[in-house]
């Protein structure tokens, strides 16, 4: 029995490594988009997200020169596209936007936490939240310490 547990354990670790090593860039279908409540739900999420960023003092300096209306519009487009929705993202490339902003890991975490609070408040399930976070995490290298 114990030996079995051990074998099961090692197999599970190896299987996990093989199944989940793909890094998500964008949702494969529109199920996440639908679960987020389509364009209406996504608009609500981004509105709460912007409010939550406003409550996060340590990152506000990054937004001093931002046009909030434009930021809101591009965020909605981007989230729609990333979640598999029928939108076109007309904003700049992630690397281009964030280059020279000196965004630290702590900034990235603070903004991710603001998004998590927005998703929670909008009633997004844990599973859908994790799907979205995995997509966002795949953009980490283009955002942080650039």
């Amino acid at each position, binding site marked *: 029995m*114990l030996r079995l*547990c*051990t074998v099961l*354990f*090692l197999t*599970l*670790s190896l299987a*996990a*490594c093989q*199944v*989940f*090593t793909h*890094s*998500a860039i964008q949702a494969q279908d529109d199920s996440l988009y639908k679960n987020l409540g389509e364009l209406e739900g996504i608009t609500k999420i981004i509105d709460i997200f912007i409010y939550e960023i406003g409550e996060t003092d340590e990152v506000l300096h990054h937004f001093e020169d931002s046009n909030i209306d434009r930021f809101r519009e591009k965020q909605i487009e981007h989230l729609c596209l990333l979640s598999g929705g029928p939108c076109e993202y007309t904003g700049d490339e992630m690397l281009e936007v964030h280059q020279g902003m000196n965004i*630290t*890991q*702590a*900034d990235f*975490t*603070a903004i*991710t*936490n603001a998004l*998590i609070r927005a998703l929670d408040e909008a009633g997004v399930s*844990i*599973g*859908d939240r*994790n*799907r979205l*976070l*995995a997509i966002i*995490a795949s953009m*980490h*290298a283009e955002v*942080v310490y650039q």
Partner: protein
Amino acid sequence: MTAPRNFLKTLAYFCCCFGVFVEVSHAGGQLIGSAGVTQMEGSAGGGIVPWATITGYGTRDEQSSTAFSSFVSVDDYRMRAYGVAHGFNNRTEVSVARLEVSAKDGGTELSENIIGLKVRLFGDLIFTPWPQVAIGAQYKHGLNAKGLPASSDSTGTDFYVAATKVWLDGPFHRTLAVNTTLRFSKANQLGLLGFGGDNSDDRDLLIETSVGLFLTRNWLVGGEYRQKPDNFNAFKEDDWKNIFVSYLPNKQMALTAAFVDLGNIGGLSDQNGGYISLQLSY
């Protein structure tokens, strides 16, 4: 050795050690849960396995400190571990821990001090497609040389390499953490029974693994396996296993409870029981 006195002693010890680091700039710029907890020998990890994580939630711009206290009770023994660790810029970890075991019949009491050093080589457990990889050493100094079998040394050092990976969107769309560690060691029962023995006096290459699934951001369940050496002819040493649940209400605290199967210890077989551990982070 009354429990409340022990607890107060431990608490006082924590407060002193925390005081040392108060002047340093601290923060917690990593996602909750990404630091793991502290394993029995004082390194950041699971309950019994050191991980590639650097203790606390510090980023490359930050310092982080943790303190932990763990209690194990199995059929014939009690174990207690406590200590502090400091993470420098998510790169290097230094830890100091004390490990004590006593037989419930009042016979044996053994203890050791452990100094740990860990360096993250490369990778980020969440943000790189490859795992976070670290190397580490645990220098262990036994305090009861007379109580040890004649064929073993009272002091020794373990070396290990650990790889940790987190998949935010894992099975069932839950976040999965997997760690595998290779340890080069001749420590008997973590070194409490000395190093090496009459059966073998060389270091063995041992595999250890932890798997955990975050049911929510605050609740983690999983299991661990740790292969052990078997250096004595007179009594056997078995591999260790546990299944655990951790509660992380915030980045300052983590509480872990586990069922542990420690097998044969010092000639007494089937040592099963419970484990509870508290970690505080700053």
